[in-house]
Every structure is written in C-alpha cells, then in structure tokens.
C-alpha cells in the first residue's frame, strides 16, 4: 500500500554550516494521525520545510503518496497541504482572496474556489470575516485561516506545524474536533506541537526528534506503556506534617499539598490506604505533568546521555 509519507536518509545542512537534520528515516501510513515531537531547534520545522519544498535538502529522498519530490514534485505538492508555524499570508488581502488565490495556484477554477472558500470558512467559524483583511483577525482566527487555506485544494496529506500555538483552550478544543473529523474523512495528518496533551489526545503514532535525529518512532499506546512512574499531586485536608507514606517517594509542597511518585507496579490504592490509615483525607489529586510530557522528557534526556 502507498505510504502517505516516506523519508529515507534525509539530511539538511544550512549554508552557515548548521546540520539541522542528520539522516532521518520516517514513514507515515495513509490515514494516520501522526505526531512529530521535538524541542525547539530539534529539526521538526526543517523536516517539514523539506517535505513542502520550502527548504532545499542536502541528501536523502522524500516521497509524498509515492511521488518523489526530486522527480515528481508537482504531484507530490498536489497531495500536500501545509499549515506552517508562522503566519505567511498577505495581511492586506481578504480571507476570501487568500483562499481563492491559493486554490487557483493548484488549478482549481475560480467559481469552484469561491464555493470551497465559503464551505471552509463556515466550517472553521470564519464566515462572517470573509471580506475582512487578514490583518484584522485575532491570532486564533489567523491559525484557522491557515488551516482553511491548506485544505482548499483537498490534499490527502495535511501537515500542521504547531497549529494551536497561542490559541485559547476553547478554540483549541474546537480545532481538535475539526482535525479529528477531517482525519476520519481520510486525510492523513502530521502534527507538531508543544502541547503534549494535544498529541496524546489526537495522534495514533508518534516520532520524537532530537538534534536532527529520530530517537523514538512508535505508536502512542506502546509509548505510554513505557511510562513506569507517574508523579501525582495530592491536596490533603490535614496538615502535611501528619501524613505517612513509607513505601512511596514523597515531597512536601506546602502545608496541605504533597507530591507522590507512584511506580506502575505499586498502583494508586496503596497511596489512599496508607493515607487513610494515618488519618489523612485526600481532597483532590492530579497528575504533576501530562503522561506523554514525562515520557518525552525522559526519552530526550536518555538520548542525550547516550
């Protein structure tokens, strides 16, 4: 079966000598919702830049739905939609002009482009802004505009480079719903994000990139199964001077709050049993960090030690 994306031996060295990507191999299956994670400067945006031909590669091959960007660039581009990290539209054009022009670049006739623009603007809650200049939009609206623009030519592969950066929680969740919907309709999605909760919630498969190399590439379930320890924050009714949790590593945060490291083999029941036995009442409990976040930090640190 044709892969949505196949990258083999990708390398990129910029003219200033910085080697941003150091031999990446990556495959994304058709229909996948794929997370590409990495710290700032890890090589994510360079990789995306090469796939979308905004960055000239130094070495390696990239195929989008079987079309090699070296030999069949036009077809590779036709299958690809890109939502970049930075706003890259004319601030003085109206939303309608931006969308219709983008469709025109892909050969979509003007009448059809106007129809698609209306549909996408409505789906993304921008219909009432259709004839406004892009510069008048809020940050969240601009992000949605870029998603609409990337979908104007109905690509099979959509790459989103931090699409929800700076977007408020409510809007972020509505964008997640929209992305899930288009993924269910068959569009393969590759997502980079710093909100690991977002990756955990949306993505089936994941790759972690660090210093220009892929250091983890697996499915989300297998990755989360590797988490052998979680840290919880517990709010206690009684003062923290009175609690006893001998079998667990704990840290006191303040008079009524403690942090507890719970290993997978231990389970949570023991924490509650021990606290009840010492006369403590747990008022509330939460994860210290997102589970994927803990793993991400652990994997990156381990990779750097090696």
């Amino acid at each position: 079966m044709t892969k949505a994306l196949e990258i083999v031996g990708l390398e990129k060295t910029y003219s200033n000598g910085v080697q941003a990507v150091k031999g990446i191999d990556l495959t994304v299956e058709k229909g996948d919702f794929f997370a590409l994670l990495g710290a700032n400067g890890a090589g994510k945006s360079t990789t995306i830049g090469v796939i979308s031909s905004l960055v000239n590669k130094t070495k390696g091959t990239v195929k989008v739905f079987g079309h090699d960007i070296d030999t069949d660039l036009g077809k590779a581009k036709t299958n690809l939609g890109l939502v970049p990290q930075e706003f890259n539209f004319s601030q003085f054009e109206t939303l309608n002009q931006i969308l219709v022009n983008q469709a025109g670049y892909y050969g979509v006739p003007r009448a059809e482009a106007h129809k698609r623009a209306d549909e996408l603007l409505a789906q993304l809650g921008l219909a009432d802004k259709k004839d406004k200049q892009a510069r008048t939009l809020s940050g969240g609206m601009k992000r949605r505009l870029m998603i609409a623009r990337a979908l104007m030519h109905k690509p099979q592969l959509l790459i989103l480079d931090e699409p929800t950066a700076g977007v408020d929680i409510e809007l972020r969740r509505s964008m997640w719903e929209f992305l899930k919907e288009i993924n269910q309709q068959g569009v393969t999605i590759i997502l980079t994000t710093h909100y690991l909760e977002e990756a955990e919630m949306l993505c089936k498969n994941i790759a972690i990139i660090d210093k220009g190399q892929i250091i983890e590439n697996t499915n989300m379930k297998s990755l989360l199964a590797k988490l052998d320890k979680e840290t919880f924050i517990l709010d206690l009714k009684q003062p923290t001077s009175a609690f006893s949790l001998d079998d667990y590593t704990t840290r006191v945060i303040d008079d009524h709050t403690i942090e507890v490291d719970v290993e997978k083999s231990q389970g949570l029941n023991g924490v509650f049993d021990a606290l009840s036995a010492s006369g403590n009442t747990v008022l509330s409990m939460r994860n210290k960090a997102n589970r994927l976040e803990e793993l991400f930090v652990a994997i990156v640190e381990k990779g750097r030690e090696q």
Partner: protein
Amino acid sequence: MSNQFTALKTIWIKECIRFTRIWVQTLVPPAITMSLYFVIFGNLIGSRIGDMGGFNYMEFIVPGLIMMSVITNSYSNVASSFYSTKFQKSIEELLVSPVPTYIIVLGYMGGGMARGLCVGIIVTILSLFFVDIQIHNVAVIFATVLLTAAVFALGGLINAVYANSFDDISIIPTFVLTPLTYLGGVFYSITLLPDFWQGVSQFNPIIYMVNAFRYGFLGVSDVDITTAFAVIIGFISALFAVAYRLIDKGVGIRH
C-alpha cells in the same frame, strides 16, 4: 496545461487587485508628476525652446513622458509586490503549490505590465489637456508599451529577488533607472548631442524604447525601429532567463 493557465490568471488577477486596491499610491502619483512635467517642461519652458525633430517641444516630449511613467511603474510594481510577498512570507503560498517557475515569472511580469499600461493610459489621457496627440502607427505604440513594460517588470522582479530590505528596491530606480531614463531621449533628440555622446547613447536601452514609442505617435525616431524592437525583445529574453533561474533556484526565497 489548464491548471497552469488557472494559476497564471490567479497571479495576474491578484497583482491587478493589489495595485488597484492601493490606487492612491500606485495610480495617482504618476498622474500628478506627469501633469507637472506637462505644465513645466511642455508649456512654460517648452514654449521658449521651439521645435524639436520637426514638432513643437510639447508634442515631442509627450511620448517620452508617457513611456517614462510606464517604465517606472511597471518596474516598481513588481519590485514592491514581490518583495512584500517575501517580507510577509506569503511567497510560500506559491512555493508549496505546484505552480511552475515560468508561470510565477509570467504572472508577476503580467501584473507589472498591467500597471504600466494603466498608468500609460492615464498619462496619455492627461496629455490630451495639453496637446493634440497624433497617431502614426497604433500597432507600434501598443507593441512598444507592452514590451517595454515587460522588460522593466522583469527587472523589478530580479531586483526584488535580491532585495533584503525595502530600501534595496529603491536603489536601482534611483541610481540606474532614473538617470538612464533622463538620458534616454525623453526630453531631447540624441541628434543634438556631439558624435561621441550619440555613440555612448546607443548603449542606453531606453533610447530604443522611447524612440520606438515616439515613432508610433509622430513617425520620427533617432534609431531604426527594427533595431529598437530587436533590442527590447533581446532584453526581455535575457531578463526572463535570469528571473527564471533565480526563482527556480530559490535565491532569496528558499533556504
């Protein structure tokens, strides 16, 4: 092929919408500037100069002034528009799409030609308030104005590719284009110059454009018309090749 035609039409319409949206900056200034030229050089000073090339001075300079406005506007349209797309990164809209390089070059060139032609028409209409324009060969007029606009639109595109700031797109017009235009036979016949300077003037491409255009109106020219068209077409070919190569390699627009 139909996809490519749609893409070309899209870039061209986008460019036309851009310069008409900001008409106060793009269409009004040349109208004011050229009206001043007509009043000062044509009426006030021109009346004291007398005939040139067998015509009164006003009749003689009108074609040159129209051409001067076409040259500067077709150049600055593409230079500022393409540089703005680089500056705002909206050039990436084109780079990620399957638009072939030659369509990008043709699209921007077409946009520059459209503005050059619009300004040329406005200035021609204004000139009618000062002089009765005669037309010797309408085909030569249109061919010259369109081809000349193409030359300078391509020049503006190359300038924008290399530009790293808005200042960079005004250097060539200030230090190259304006002197060449003023020395390009707009205000005088090169036959008035000493032989040596007449020879030097042959290396100024604008001489050929202004004279071909003047020939279309008045039927007189300091240069051979066939040579003039050969020079203009030669420049278009060379500049198109350079612009194509620069954009295809991604100079200034790809990392």
